[in-house]
């Protein structure tokens, strides 16, 4: 068997160092909701209304898969990021040097790890190296998602309009992660705090989810912020 188990997602690691082609070759990162022009929206809306919406800048996202070799993946994640592989419906977060890493349980053999965008490749390598020859899979899906934060006094009300899942604070507890249907799209949602939620949305569905959130939030007043 080939010693290289799988191909790297990117053959080249650094994307910012290459500028030999002129301006058009300094890559510009566009989030899924770039077209909504959050900066101009943020200027137009008041702050502190019932609902606050934020689209985060593009984040590194790695899908981690393991079945029989789950302990090896857990050990690799632990050794490379000091992060524990979360249990069912849970998430674990580590903040190191201002960088935030969050692992979310997705399915019995699947986790979603978010990290700074520019570190995704290196983290993938580190976990692979640490996991050795065990049967795991890692896929860089950073381009495939966007992250939307929902907060404010009425955030839970908006959530109740959007998902069938029971989002009562006693049930959708802090740190819990749920993959569910968001109206007619699919999201990975996490409770960060009372009335503070994170949605990881497929990029192509982001516009729909964003529109839905605005309609559902309208009656409470929407503040749009940028990060």
């Amino acid at each position, binding site marked *: *068997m*080939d010693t*290289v*188990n*799988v*191909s*790297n*997602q*990117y*053959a*080249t690691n650094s*994307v910012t160092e290459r*500028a*030999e*082609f002129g301006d*058009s*070759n300094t*890559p*510009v*990162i*566009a*989030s*899924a909701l*770039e*077209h909504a022009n959050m900066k101009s929206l943020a200027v137009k809306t008041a702050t502190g209304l019932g609902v606050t919406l934020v689209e985060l800048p*593009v984040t590194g996202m790695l*899908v981690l*898969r393991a079945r029989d070799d789950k302990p090896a993946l857990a050990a690799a994640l632990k050794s490379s990021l000091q992060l524990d592989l979360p249990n069912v419906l849970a998430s674990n977060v580590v903040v190191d040097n201002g960088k935030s890493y969050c692992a979310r349980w997705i399915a019995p*053999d699947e986790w979603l790890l978010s990290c700074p965008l520019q570190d995704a490749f290196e983290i993938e390598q580190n976990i692979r190296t640490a996991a050795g020859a065990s*049967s795991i*899979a890692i*896929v*860089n*899906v*950073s*381009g*495939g*998602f966007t992250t939307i934060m929902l907060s404010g006094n009425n955030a839970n*009300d908006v959530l*109740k*309009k959007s*998902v069938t899942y*029971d989002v*009562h604070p*006693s049930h959708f507890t802090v740190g819990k992660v749920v993959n569910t249907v968001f*109206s*007619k*799209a699919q999201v990975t949602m996490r409770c960060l705090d009372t009335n503070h939620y994170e949605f990881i949305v*497929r*990029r*192509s*569905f982001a*516009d*729909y989810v964003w*529109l*839905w959130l605005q*309609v*559902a939030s*309208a*009656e409470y007043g929407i503040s749009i912020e940028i990060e």
Partner: protein
Amino acid sequence: MVNFVKGRFVQNYRLPSGGRINRNKVLTFRYNNRYYKGYEGDTLASALLANGVDIVGRSFKYSRARGIMCAGVEEPNAIMQVGATEATQIPNVRATEQSLYDGLVCSSVKGFPSVRFDFMSLVGRVAGGAMGPGFYYKTFMFPAFMWETYEKFIRKAAGLGRSSRERDPDTYDHMHQHVDVMVVGGGASGLMAALSAARAGARVIIADEQSEMGGALLHHYKEIDNMPALDWVQQVCDELDANENVQRFTRSVVTGLHDHNFLTINERRTHHLGDAAPQGMTRERIHKVRASSVVLATGAHERPLVFGNNDLPGCMQCSAVSQYIRRYAVMPGTSLVVMTANDSGYQCAFDWFDVGREVVAIVDTRANPDGDVFVQAKERGIEVITGSAVIEARGGERVRKAVVAAINDKGTFVTGEPTELLCDTIASSGGWSPAVHLSCHTGSRPVWNDDIFGFVPGETPENNIAAGRVSGAQTLSDCLREGIKAGADAAASCATLHGQASSDSLSTPKVVDVKQGAAMAMYLVPHTKTPTRAPKQFVDMQNDVTAAALQVSTREGFESIEHVKRYTAMGFGTDQGKTGNVNGMAIVAKTLGQTIAQTGTTVFRPNYTPVTFGAVAGSNKGALFDPKRFTPMHKWHVEHGAKFENVGQWKRAWYFPREGERMQDTLNRECVATRASVGILDASTLGKIDIQGKDAREFLGRVYTNAWAKLEPGRCRYGLMCGEDGMVMDDGVTSCLAENHFLMTTTTGGAASVLSWLELYHQTEWPEMDVYFNSVTDHWATMTISGPNSRALLAKVCSDIDLDKDAFKFMDWRAGTVAGAPARVYRISFTGELSYEINVPAHYGLHVWEALFEHGREFDLTPYGTESMHVLRAEKGFVIVGQDTDGSITPIDMDHAWAVANNKPFSYIGKRGMAREDCLRPNRKQLVGLETVDPNTVLPEGAQAVRNPAQSIPMTMVGHVTSSYYSANVGRSIAMAVIRDGLNRMGESVFFPLADGSVVEAKICNTNWVDPDGARHKS
């Protein structure tokens, strides 16, 4: 008429004091083009009565005048068309449920052209005798082709309301709720149930359809815990509101109880505020409630008695009379006769008497009433006529007289001489029908209870708990006690409780109950004449169903109550027979010599009351009706004038017209430019599945028809996927990224189903295989540059991949950097030209796309959409699965035998299917090219082929056109088709008879119109 209140706008029937109305807030409303005044707190019905409006509609079949009969949800007559503007029209609003607001505009939906003069009444009077049950079936069903004409007339004449012809200005939404205990109904029992469940630590929703909690307590003045009943209600509500685990909804009808304790609540949020919802508020909300346990405290509807002319305005339910007097300070008339078969009917006479109005008599059908109320009536000096009944009402368009006669003790025939009592209002009570609707929504059948003469809820699959009047409780203290127990039991039955338990125990509030006399089973009041000869005795007011009609229908052989319902229309309509059904069942039972239990009920289905379509749709309209998916380059396409087409949920650029171009001009330009220089396509929507694991290669071999054992890293291969039946299901290029790592591409529409297919086989058939599948469709932005200049263009933005034709060959892929972004570049082609498919993470997609255009100017880089893509691939004979295949085409049928490897060590999906006799027989439809004899004729896709156009119909069809275009590159029309035995009939003619009578001749040909040797894509 006496003027009770002096002033410019006289509400003649308003009492000078009392009621739960705000006399400081006068509201103006318009009914049938006249202006009236009412007060805040009124319903539309109470305001109409306050203004002395007798007639609120004309009846369905006989066009008789109808007045307000009830005060709540069960009202059959007062059905209004509400709305001040065309856009805000709402049909079939019950006036008894519509809170009055300033500026309300409404009209009767019944009565055409007007309630005061109604030409249908002439038909009704003349033809009344002929309009028996099943009248419409018998009269209007034949001839069948006339039904559409009849229907328009009947609908208009029958007075169903109309919906708006304009866009509804209001918005609606849905909300998902999860509770431990759902309490339906906010009367005494419901409030107690909610409170006891909440104190036990349950998360609770209590919903009531009225504007405030209290149920019958709102008009039934009793003391609870030594305080006025409504103060007690307020105290309970205060405690519920203070508990963060309790939600209390008013104006909220629980419309359905579905499987697994899923309930729907229709909350009318702004109906009481105005014609249209205030800015920022949704008009209605559907709450979708998932409850662990459900308490049904839905109360009961009073059954009016059935007697002659009982539909005359002025005939009402006893409890409705009490409600109008007590809750709204409105007198529904001036002099009252009460007929009752039980004690509860007395209360309205007391309420009427106690505000100083004339009670002519209480007519009690029981020979010897012995409850406390009998004594109380005597104490007030009200005449009580026992052992008698009001057998007929008399009057023109309002009650003028009640005809009273003695009856036998079973209430089956008249024993005495009829006498007349002068009055303008007849209130009647035949008992109470528990509101069993929700329990029956579960499929449970209600159970007849002989103690209360009514159906009570049967056992439901989820053991819903009925409490209070709905379960047959007769006294207030029983209702309170049952409510407490139901709430506690409901909480106890929950596996987990999500609220905070309270240590305070809930004791039964103190109430003084009066001694109740035994009630009498009474439905149809006898007349001196038989039902068919007597004045009409109405059972169902809304559908004009009489006692006589029910008897006739049983005589005509309709013995099942379901058949009777459909033949007579009893229980149809917006009220669904809430007042009349049990009376009707009793009449049918008696005619058939059965018990009511044997006759049974019709089926109760959701919704309990009608729900508007706006509420059903909620926010799922316009842009939110279905998700639209966009590629990372969508903004550019929009800015460059692209037309879009839907491919699944994706919006794909279809073509990029320039000023003044017709669509075909655009396609010609895009296709020629691509083959002449270079074109670019946004292919981001293609399904992309990342496959990893040491068995990944073997897995591919099992799901694709072709071989994968030898595909090296850096190479790509086209694959065909079949279902078990051997029919082509999907296709695409799969690339070997590393020994154990592949990237599969699927059709845009097949992405999700192919991933499910792989998972299905992995999880159910080959779980031992070490392989992982992940969707990376959204991760990669994909752009294909195609044409002789594509290498030169790519070289401008990519320096770290050796683009030499021998170093980077056709069907190779390379990793590198494109316009500064990390990229995978695949040298694959769907146009037959030299092509590179550039994939970058989606957040770089727009940047790379724009960089290509910046450098592409010198090559006249031309964006093209899916339509030119279709033409370009057809010029090469490349198939599109789903367009050129339809689930009945094998790889062999589409001349793709080269993509089938039958020598693989393990079988593959579709191998056995393809080996079936039918798949091997000759004369199957095969994919071929077509050239029309006239090169400018473009065959319609789907056109059916025949070999002999002279054959008479039905002709022998031998296939159809699957793809057809005008190709500017070929200079003529080209088409692909599936034709029987087509691969063996090259050069033969087939004919296409078209819908317009013309016949198009085309010759069967090879599909490879451009560059048959493949020199270009390998260049």
